[in-house]
C-alpha cells in the first residue's frame, strides 16, 4: 500500500479554504463599496444615477486606468513606480511638439511608446542591476521626465493635428444616448490584456512569485531579473499609453500635466486590494480603485458647495472611510498560515 498523508490534514486543508479566495476579498469589498457610493450619489443628487455619469467615470479616467494597470505589475513584484505621472506629462509634451513639427500621428504614437518603454527600461535596469531601491530610482526618473518636459518647452503646447483631434473628439454612442470615447476602449483593452498576461502567461505568474518572495523565486530558477526589469518596462509603456490618452483628453502637451498622478495611481491600486509588499492583487481591483476615486470626485462636483479646503478634507475622509470599511469587510485574514490570527 502506498503510504499517504493522514487524511485529516487534507480534509482540514480543504475545509478551511473559504469559497472566495482570501486574496479576492478586498476586490469584492471595493466593488461593494463602489456600488454603495454610486447609490448614495444617485439618491442624493439629481441626474447622478444616469448611465452617462457612470460611463463618464471611464471617459474621465481612462488614462488613470491604464496607469494603474502598469502600476499593478510593479507593485505585485513588491516595487513601486513614482515616475508614471511625469512620464505622462513627457508623453503629452513629446506628442504635442512632434505633431507641431509635422510628424504624422502614427509615427508620434510609436515615438511616445518607445520613449515610455525606454524610461521604464532605465528604471528597471537601475533597480535590478544596481540594486537601487525602486522608490528612489523612479523618483529620480520622475525628476528627469518632468525636467525634460521643461527643456522641450515651458509653455503648454496645443495639439492641432487633425487625426489626433478626430480620435480625441470622436465618440461612440451607445443605446440610451450614452456616449463614450475611444480612450475608454483602449483602457478596457489594456485591462483585459494585462489580466491575461498576469494570469495566463509564465511572465505573469513569475511576477506573482517574485512578489511572494524574490529570493525564493531566484532559487526556484525563475527569470527574476527579466521579470523585475520587465514590469518597469510595462509600467513605462502603460505610462506612455496613458500619456497618449491624456493627450487626447487635454489636446495639449504641458510639463505641469499629471502632477501627483502617481499617487492617484498608487492609491487606486491599493484601494483595489493589492498589497504594497507584493505578491497579492488583481488588475480588476485596480480598475475598481480608479472608479472609486472617480466617484468620489463626481460626488464632490455634484455637491457643488465645497470650498477648496473642504474638498481636500472630504476626499481624505472618504478615502479613510473607504479603507477602514474595506479592512472590516475583507477582515484580517491570514494570508498564510503563520500570519496567525
Amino acid at each position, binding site marked *: 500500500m502506498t503510504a499517504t498523508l493522514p487524511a485529516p490534514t487534507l480534509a482540514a486543508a480543504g475545509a478551511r479554504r473559504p469559497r472566495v479566495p482570501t486574496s479576492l476579498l478586498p476586490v469584492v469589498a471595493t466593488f461593494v463599496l463602489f456600488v454603495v457610493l454610486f447609490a448614495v450619489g444617485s439618491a442624493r443628487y439629481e441626474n447622478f444615477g444616469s448611465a452617462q455619469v457612470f460611463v463618464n467615470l471611464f471617459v*474621465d479616467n481612462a488614462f488613470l486606468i491604464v496607469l494603474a494597470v502598469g502600476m499593478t505589475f510593479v507593485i505585485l513584484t513588491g516595487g513601486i513606480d513614482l515616475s508614471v505621472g511625469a512620464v505622462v506629462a513627457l508623453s503629452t509634451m513629446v506628442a504635442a511638439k512632434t505633431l507641431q513639427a509635422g510628424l504624422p500621428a502614427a509615427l508620434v504614437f510609436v515615438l511616445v511608446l518607445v520613449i515610455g518603454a525606454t524610461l521604464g527600461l532605465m528604471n528597471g535596469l537601475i533597480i535590478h542591476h544596481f540594486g537601487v531601491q525602486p522608490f528612489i530610482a523612479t523618483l529620480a526618473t520622475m525628476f528627469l521626465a518632468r525636467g525634460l518636459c*521643461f527643456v522641450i518647452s*515651458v509653455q503648454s503646447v496645443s495639439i492641432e493635428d487633425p487625426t489626433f483631434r478626430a480620435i480625441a473628439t470622436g*465618440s461612440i454612442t451607445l443605446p440610451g444616448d450614452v456616449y463614450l470615447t475611444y480612450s475608454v476602449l483602449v483602457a478596457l483593452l489594456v485591462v483585459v490584456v494585462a489580466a491575461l498576461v498576469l494570469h495566463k502567461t509564465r511572465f505573469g505568474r513569475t511576477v506573482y512569485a517574485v512578489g511572494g518572495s524574490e529570493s525564493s523565486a531566484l532559487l526556484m530558477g525563475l527569470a527574476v531579473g527579466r521579470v523585475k526589469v520587465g514590469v518597469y518596462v510595462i509600467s513605462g509603456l502603460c505610462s506612455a499609453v496613458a500619456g497618449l490618452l491624456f493627450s487626447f483628453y487635454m489636446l495639449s502637451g*504641458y510639463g505641469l500635466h499629471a502632477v501627483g498622478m502617481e499617487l492617484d495611481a498608487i492609491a487606486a491600486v491599493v484601494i483595489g486590494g493589492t498589497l504594497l509588499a507584493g505578491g497579492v492583487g488583481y488588475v480588476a481591483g485596480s480598475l475598481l480603485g480608479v472608479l472609486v476615486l472617480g466617484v468620489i470626485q*463626481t460626488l464632490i*462636483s455634484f455637491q457643488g458647495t465645497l470650498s477648496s479646503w473642504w474638498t*481636500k478634507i472630504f476626499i481624505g475622509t472618504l478615502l479613510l472611510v473607504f479603507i477602514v470599511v474595506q479592512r472590516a469587510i475583507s477582515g484580517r485574514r491570514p494570508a498564510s498560515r503563520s500570519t496567525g490570527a
Partner: protein
Amino acid sequence: ACGGGGEAAPAGQSGGGGGSDKLTMGFAQVGAESGWRTANTKSIQESASSAGVDLKFSDAQQKQENQIKAIRTYIQQKVDVIAFSPVVETGWDTVLLEAKRANIPVILTDRSVDSTDTTLYKTFLGSDFVAEGKKAGDWLVKDSEGKSEVDVAELQGTTGAAPAIDRKEGFAEAIKAAPQIKVVASQTGDFTRSGGKQVMEAFLKSNPDIDVVYAHNDDMALGAIEAIEAAGKKPGKDIEIISVDAVKDGMTALSEGKINYIVECNPLLGPQLMDLAKKVKAGEEVPQRVVTEETTFTQDEAKKALPDRKY
C-alpha cells in the same frame, strides 16, 4: 459623432432648472494655490450670493483634468452657465464642444483659451499677464533713466505657469528699450515667500551687485525683502523691488517703502462675472473680451489706497 443634443433641454431663457428663475452657474476653479486665488474664489462666491445666483463650485486641486471633469458634471447637471479659470490656455476644445452641444454658454475668467473656434465660449473676463510684465518693465525703464548699469534679479513664478511665462515675456520686452538694464539672475521662487527668500539669499551671495529685484508676485517679493534685510541691506533703497499682484501685505510693504512699484493683478472678478452671466442668460450680446480694471501703484499711491484694500 455624438448624436446628443437632440433631447437636451434648451438651456435658454425659460431654463430647465425646476421652474425657479434663479440662474444656476457652474464654476470650475483651478485650486487654491495662492492667496490671490483664494481672494478670487471668495469674490465669486460672495457676488454670486448677493446677485442671487445659484453657484455650483468645484475646486480642481490644481489639475486641469479635474477641471474638465467638473465641467462635464456641470453639463450633466444642466446648469445655465458654466464659468471657469483656465490657467492653461490649451486643451479645452473637447469639453467646450460638449458644452456647446448641450447649449450651455461658457464664460472664461482670468485667462483665455487658445482655441481658434471662438464660438466655443461667450466671453473672456480677465487680466493680461503680458501687459502686467510690460507695465513693470516700463516703470523700471523710466526709473533707470540716466543710470549706467542696472542689474536685475528676476524671481519667476512656478516654472511653466502662465503668469510666470507671460510676466517674464512682457518684462523682457519692455526693458529692451533700455540697454543698461540687464537681468543677471533669474530663478523660480514658485510664487511663494519661502521660495523668494531662499532664491534671493543665494542671489545675494553669487551676485553681490544686484540693483533691482523683479518678482512675479508680491509673495516672492516679501520673501526677498527678508533675505535682503538679513544681508544687512535696505530693501527699496539699496535694492529696488518691483512686483505684481497688490495683495494687502504687498501694499503694506510698498507703503513702508520696502517695495518700489506694484502692478495690480485684480482677483475680484466676481461682480463683473455675475453681470456677464446674467446678460448671457438673457440672451444679450456681450463683448468677446472684457478686461479687468487694473492699475499700478507707486509708494505714495499705495499709502492712499491701503485703507480701502479688500484683500
